[in-house]
C-alpha cells in the first residue's frame, strides 16, 4: 500500500528538518516545504481516479458539466490557498498567510457567483 510510502516520506522529512534546524534554520523550513510537496505529488494519480469517477457520475446523472467544473475549480483554488497559507505560516509570516486566505475566499466567491445567480433565476421563475 502506498500509504506507508507517503507516511515514510513525511517522517523522514520531519526528522531531516529537525537535524538541519540546528545547523541551518532557513534550510529546515525549505525541507518541510519540499517534503510536503513530494507527499502531495504522490497523491496525484489517486486523485485523478477520483475525479474520473466523479465525472462519469455527473454525466450519468445528467447534471450540467459546467456546474461540476466550477466545483472542481473551487476545490482547486481552495486547496492551493490553504497550501500556500500553511507554507507562509510555516516560514513564520503569519500575516501574509492571512492575506492569502482572504484572497482565496474572495476568488472562490467570484467563482461561485454564476451558480448563485443561476439559482435565483430558477427560484424567481418558479414563483407566480
Amino acid at each position, binding site marked *: 500500500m502506498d500509504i506507508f510510502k507517503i507516511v*515514510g*516520506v513525511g517522517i*523522514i*522529512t520531519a526528522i*531531516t528538518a529537525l*537535524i*538541519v534546524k540546528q*545547523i*541551518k534554520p*532557513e*534550510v*529546515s523550513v*525549505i*525541507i518541510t*516545504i*519540499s*517534503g510536503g*510537496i*513530494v507527499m*502531495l*505529488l*504522490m497523491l*496525484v494519480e489517486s*486523485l*485523478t481516479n477520483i*475525479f474520473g469517477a466523479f465525472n462519469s457520475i455527473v454525466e450519468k446523472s445528467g447534471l450540467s458539466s459546467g456546474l461540476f*467544473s466550477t466545483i*472542481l*475549480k473551487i*476545490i*482547486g*483554488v481552495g*486547496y*492551493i490557498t490553504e497550501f500556500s497559507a500553511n507554507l507562509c505560516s510555516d516560514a513564520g509570516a503569519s500575516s501574509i498567510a492571512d492575506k492569502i486566505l482572504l484572497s482565496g475566499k474572495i476568488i472562490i466567491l467570484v467563482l461561485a457567483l454564476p451558480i448563485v445567480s443561476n439559482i435565483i433565476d430558477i427560484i424567481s421563475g418558479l414563483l407566480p
Partner: protein
Amino acid sequence: MGVEIIFKIAAVGIITAVVNQVLKHANKEEIATLTTLAGLIVVLLMVLNLIGTLFDTVRTMFNL
C-alpha cells in the same frame, strides 16, 4: 520524485554550513557570507522547481 530530493536539499544546507565554518577559520569572512548566500540560492531554486511542478499538476488536474 521521492525522498532523494529532500536529502539533496539537506546535503546542500549542511555543506554550505561546513564550508562557511572552514572559510571563517581561514579568516576569509566575506567569501564565507558569499558561499552561504550561494548555498541558500541553490536550495531555493530546487524548491522553486518543486513548487512549479506542484502548481502545474494542480492546474491540469482542476483545469483552473
